[in-house]
């Protein structure tokens, strides 16, 4: 159990929470090592030409990671994803300048990185990672610098579906800890949730109809964030250069800066993990959401799939029939729009609060039987774009026990063009 191991190794027991390792059945083995003097940098200066990294989170850790990634030789493309805007309180803990205050984090960092490496293609996405089309995350490595378990769950799931490695980083300011975890999807490899127990799931952030206080900022010092970012980018560099055997695959590397200790914990695949560990075979579609109708999408399920009603869906999102304002009770009908693409429709016209949809006003799988019977023909020719589908979305179509996954075309927006997501203004 990591907490106990940590205590034996001198790491305070209450550091467990940020180490994301419980006493789940996956198990973990920790060894404390002396500080390494081997020069890792000399073995891998570059990365494979033409590689692409998606960086999610541009705060205390991600801001520093962005600059380090931009300096990797051979990296061709960097996608930046963050829904937030920099404010003045970030100046002391994040890698920004005063001129960045008020700017979307992804936009501000993109401009900075283009000055560092003009040849680097930088694609900023101002959106919640849970709402970003899965195709936009299709990189060689995902680098996550997040401050919530829920967001980490989403990235873990995306990485497994796409079959690409991801590197998670975290800091704990009051105990001066910085750590990185490296996950590489494979049948025998642990994921983020393999080490989670019931207590970890109890800590996953939730959205309440009565509101609730937002999560407090970590307020970690910039130096700690920079350390975590450096560890993270070093691991990323190994993966991009093909030196997978040297990466901390399935492990956590933790630096206790207060006592100068370095711990490496190996995780095991948990046979009882709540996540299914399935990677998808995703077939590209040439059609854009505006050119593909609901009926045509449902027909994809009939090609080689099982019997039963064909249905379609997007993992992590639901189709919303109606929104209701928890404040004033105003309702808004939506005719099955994706929950992550509601945009301004989510805001109550009366009291400006974010509107929500209960489970009884949503469905996860849309088939012909959910469409209005009296206008079925018209509903079937409705383009997917009218429901909020975007280029890059991976649509799952099912019939019976068979399912297929298609990525909507055409190719994602031109690099350099800022993508503003339609999920902003809270969860639904």
């Amino acid at each position: 159990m990591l907490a106990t191991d940590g205590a034996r190794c001198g790491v305070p027991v209450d550091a467990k929470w940020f180490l994301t390792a419980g006493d789940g059945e996956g198990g973990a083995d920790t060894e404390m090592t002396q500080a390494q003097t081997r020069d890792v940098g000399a073995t891998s200066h570059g990365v494979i030409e033409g590689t692409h990294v998606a960086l999610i989170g541009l705060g205390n850790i991600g801001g520093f990671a962005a600059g380090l990634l931009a300096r990797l030789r051979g990296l061709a493309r960097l996608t930046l994803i963050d829904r937030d805007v920099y404010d003045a309180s970030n100046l002391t803990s994040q890698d920004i300048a005063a001129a960045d205050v008020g700017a979307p984090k992804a936009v501000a960092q993109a401009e900075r990185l283009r000055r560092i490496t003009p040849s680097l293609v930088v694609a900023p996405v101002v959106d919640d990672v849970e709402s970003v089309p899965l195709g936009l995350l299709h990189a060689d490595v995902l680098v996550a610098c997040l401050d919530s378990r829920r967001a980490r769950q989403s990235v873990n799931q995306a990485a497994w579906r796409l079959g690409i490695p991801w590197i998670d980083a975290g800091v704990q300011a009051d105990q001066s800890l910085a750590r990185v975890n490296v996950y590489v999807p494979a049948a025998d490899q642990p994921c983020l949730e393999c080490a989670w127990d019931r207590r970890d799931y109890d800590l996953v952030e939730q959205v309440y109809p009565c509101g609730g206080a937002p999560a407090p900022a970590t307020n970690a010092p910039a130096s700690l964030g920079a350390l975590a970012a450096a560890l993270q980018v070093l691991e990323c560099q190994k993966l991009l250069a093909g030196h997978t055997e040297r990466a901390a695959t399935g492990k956590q590397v933790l630096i206790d800066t207060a006592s100068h200790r370095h711990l490496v914990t190996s995780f095991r695949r948990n046979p009882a993990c709540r996540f299914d560990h399935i990677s998808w075979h995703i077939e590209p579609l040439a059609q854009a959401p505006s050119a593909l109708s609901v009926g045509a999408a449902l027909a994809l399920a009939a090609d080689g799939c099982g019997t039963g009603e064909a249905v379609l869906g997007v993992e992590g999102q639901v189709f919303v029939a109606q929104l209701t304002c928890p404040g004033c009770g105003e309702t808004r009908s939506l005719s099955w729009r994706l929950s992550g693409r509601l945009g301004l429709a989510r805001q109550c016209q009366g009291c400006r609060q974010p509107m929500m949809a209960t489970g009884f006003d949503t469905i996860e799988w849309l088939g012909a039987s959910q469409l209005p019977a009296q206008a079925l023909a018209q509903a079937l020719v409705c383009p997917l774009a009218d429901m909020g589908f975007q280029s890059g979305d991976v649509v799952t179509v099912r019939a019976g026990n068979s399912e297929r996954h298609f990525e909507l075309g055409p190719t994602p927006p031109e690099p350099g063009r800022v993508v503003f997501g339609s999920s902003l203004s809270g969860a639904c």
Partner: protein
Amino acid sequence: MDKVFEGFLCRQCEQGMVLDNESDLFDLVPLDPPPAPRRYIACFHCTGLVRTPAGDVTEANQFAVGITFPDDYLRRADPFRVLSWLGPREVFHPNISDRAPFICVGRIAPGMLLVDLIYQLHEIITFNKATVREDDALNPDACAWVRRNQDRLPVDTRPLKRRRIEFTVEPLGV
């Protein structure tokens, strides 16, 4: 459907129907075909409160809540997505909105059992559990009423599942 999740749904249905059979205070209606329904309506016949159009707070004994288990319920749970208040709309309770189909039972742990959800709902409806913080309440008026009328709560003390005692009455021939 994921086999683990399907197994979970099957067990919830079995346990929920057992509780339904053992309780005279609620009925559980699956909305999807067996063996793994995802959605239910829980109809409670316990005593709760409603507010009349005239503004009077009176007792009522018919309440309905929709329960939904999303695909990822074992890994994350949003209370507003899992529970839908179906009626009556005039319900009077700090944790239940009288304008929108929302009920707040507090945190729902991912994978929380259906029977545990039902027990939580029963506690809310009968005022065995009610928030007294208006900034946290879906019905601030009801919250203020609770603070002034603590001596009247809970409005229904009957447990959801009552132990059935089998006995016979025989005349004593005297």
